[in-house]
């Protein structure tokens, strides 16, 4: 019954985001342009952002700082294992996006790295010449179906998101994430709830450690740190949805063309 309610809720919310949803590439770019995403709850978002910053200063930053001094092979091993686990979310989304070839490649990548690569610690698939890994999630799948991002949100602890992406992440908890299913959802003898939450926490610390200097630098040199983080998050989401980091495919150049200084 609860699952049915969730599905109905998601359907209603999704239909509310965009009545004219289409799958045309240019429309997807336009809908996901950072400047087009409304900050409907800005004052609440700013308050949550301030809370997250305080939490970061008290917990994540010191832990990430300590994590950085670990030997490189340990850090890259942890990072590889977490990335390997994320295949469990990427593969169903490759299928949802009609990318069957990628789903096959990522399945192969997951099997090789989990077995030969010792639970993903070593990225054997990369050595074997597998194509570069691109993470996918349910928010990206909805976007490729033409669903707009809705309003920008800042979630407590989890950070920046959009209404679409937050709603889509509910799918993870109703059977859409195999890692959640074997750890939290089902009582298996091999994994416990702890494994799931520990992997998510480590993932957050790993991200913070990898971007330690960049985040510090950005904070120090921003005149509105909240707006900078929002812009960077939305640019990153747009790239992930389009599966490209080529700026010419994600940016509207018309604004540049108007600037004449020579």
């Amino acid at each position: 019954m609860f699952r049915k309610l969730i599905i109905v809720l998601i359907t209603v919310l999704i239909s509310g985001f965009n009545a004219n949803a289409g799958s045309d590439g240019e429309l997807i770019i336009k809908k996901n342009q950072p400047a087009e995403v409304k900050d409907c709850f800005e004052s609440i978002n700013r308050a949550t952002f301030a809370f997250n910053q305080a939490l970061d200063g008290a917990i994540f930053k010191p832990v990430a700082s300590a994590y950085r001094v670990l030997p490189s092979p340990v850090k890259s091993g942890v990072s590889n294992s977490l990335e390997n686990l994320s295949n469990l979310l990427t593969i169903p989304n490759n299928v949802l996006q009609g990318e069957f070839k990628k789903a096959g490649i990522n399945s192969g990548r997951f099997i090789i790295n989990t077995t030969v690569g010792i639970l993903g610690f070593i990225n054997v698939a990369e050595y074997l010449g597998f194509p570069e890994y691109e993470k996918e999630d349910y928010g990206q799948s909805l976007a490729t179906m033409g669903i707009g991002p809705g309003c920008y949100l800042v979630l407590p602890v989890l950070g920046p998101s959009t209404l679409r992406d937050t709603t889509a992440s509910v799918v993870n908890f109703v059977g859409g994430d195999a890692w959640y299913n074997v750890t939290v959802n089902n009582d298996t003898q091999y994994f416990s709830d702890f494994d799931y939450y520990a992997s998510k926490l480590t993932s957050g610390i790993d991200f913070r450690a990898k971007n330690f200097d960049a985040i510090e630098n950005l904070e120090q040199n921003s005149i509105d740190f909240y707006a900078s983080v929002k812009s960077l998050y939305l640019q990153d989401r747009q790239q992930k949805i389009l599966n490209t980091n080529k700026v010419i495919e994600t940016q509207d150049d018309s604004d540049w063309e108007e600037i004449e200084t020579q």
Partner: protein
Amino acid sequence: MNFKKILIIVFFLNSIFTSSFSLEPDVFVQSTVNRASQILSTNISKEEKINELKSIAKETVDITGVGFYSLGSARKNLDNKQKEKYSELFEKYFLKSFSSRLAEYTNPEIEVTGKEVLNKNYTIVNSILIATSERPEVKIDWRIYTKNPNNPLIRDLIIEGLSLARTQKEEFSSILNSNNGNIDILFKTLEEFSNN
């Protein structure tokens, strides 16, 4: 006959000079990063490094262009006096922000890997910031303004696909939006940042 000869010689000389002085965007980026890298690895004080980096930025970045881009559509509402004041404030803000961002790095190794000509005015130069034990490899693209091929200028840095100019533009837009588009508040914010 003589006139024809003169024309040919003029044309020939012009083509030699044009090709000698025209600077390829990828060569320009590599030489700029090499200069910055040299300063960062030199054993001088942070203050001296910042000053050296500022002079490189003044030479190689189209600060005025980046400034007006960052202002978005608000630039259309400024009168000449405001434009002048904004350019002055933006330059101070940009140089402080840019040089203090870079001064934290010690001997960053950047390797230019390719380029893509977008049109007569723009080329995207691709490069890689080589990985260290503390951070992974980072892809950096440079938007080079090539309207005057003899004097290419940097207009944007795109780090792992994230544009710094675009981020700055959205930051300025946020300040203007939360203050009913009052440009004086933005001027004050830029001034405070530069003076701190």
